[in-house]
């Protein structure tokens, strides 16, 4: 049952993930479009960090705090978009699995000087089938790579949008989100048309 929609006093909550390598501008993008608040989780509570964290010598530090960028945008009176900027390293997959469940889509933020940093994010969303786009953060307007070059380098499917953005700019970051939602609409339309013909 879809409680959220049946109870009109509860707004519909939609998740959008903002992923990418360290220092690529995730925090900047989330804070450009929403009121950002710190949100953290403790790795030890998930036990996922146990194999990867070498705690020898620092045995007293038994937990690692993982900070996320958490932003909230009210769109209209009954829909709220939640943005989660998540660390892009492999060891944080446990966090991603939790956040990506039921997510509307994802923004993979890329820096052309370190394009390889976003490979894990691209792989992850491709594997999960989460709709995503790649937004190239153009610091100081410097890295005006042709989007086609980025697309080739990341070996993206032709329908995955690649856009240029300035994560510091509210309008530009807003446009990234709009493009993502439009991309989700395209995917929904593509997958639903045959199904709706069959079942209704």
């Amino acid at each position: 049952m879809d409680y959220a929609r049946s109870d009109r006093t509860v707004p519909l909550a939609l998740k959008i993930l903002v992923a990418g390598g360290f220092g690529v501008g995730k925090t900047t993008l989330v804070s450009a479009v929403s009121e950002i608040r710190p949100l953290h989780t403790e790795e030890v509570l998930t036990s996922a960090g146990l194999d990867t964290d070498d705690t020898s010598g620092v045995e007293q530090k038994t937990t690692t705090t993982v900070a996320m960028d958490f932003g909230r945008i009210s769109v209209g009176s009954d829909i709220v978009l939640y943005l989660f900027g998540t660390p892009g390293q492999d060891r944080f997959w446990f966090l991603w699995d939790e956040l990506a469940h039921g997510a509307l889509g994802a923004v993979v933020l890329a820096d052309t000087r370190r394009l390889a940093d976003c490979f894990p994010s691209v792989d992850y969303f491709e594997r999960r089938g989460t709709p995503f786009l790649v937004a190239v953060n153009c610091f100081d307007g410097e890295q005006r790579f042709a989007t086609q070059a980025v697309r080739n380098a990341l070996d993206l499917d032709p329908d995955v949008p690649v856009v240029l953005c300035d994560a510091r700019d509210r309008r530009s970051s807003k446009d990234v989100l709009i493009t993502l939602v439009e991309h989700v609409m395209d995917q929904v339309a593509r997958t639903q048309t045959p199904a709706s013909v069959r079942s209704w």
Partner: protein
Amino acid sequence: MTSNERAAAWWDRDAGPVVRPYAMTGGRVPAAARFDVVATVRAAPLGGALPPDLQPEHRQILAAARSPITVADLAAELDLALGVVQVLLHDLAVQELICLHEPGRASAVPDENVLKAVVNGLRAL
């Protein structure tokens, strides 16, 4: 921040919480079926007094959830780790002190009208 202030505040967020998360949860970790971070929580209408064995954090959650609030908003508002909030919510759910509205599968991929509303809402920001 001056160096004096910095020295005085050495136990800031980077130092980790003063009360470790496992202390708040009694060493328990979230169950396999964790609450979605955007699941909505609401305190159940209370028949009588609250059970006496609730921790302060349980009470904080109930107070914050008097009107519907998401799991992520709760964690941010109460400055508790997500995993901690999920364990505490589980306690409250077992005692039927909260109602949970998990976003259903249907709302994971909302219909076209919702998506259009999102696009229009974003444009209007």
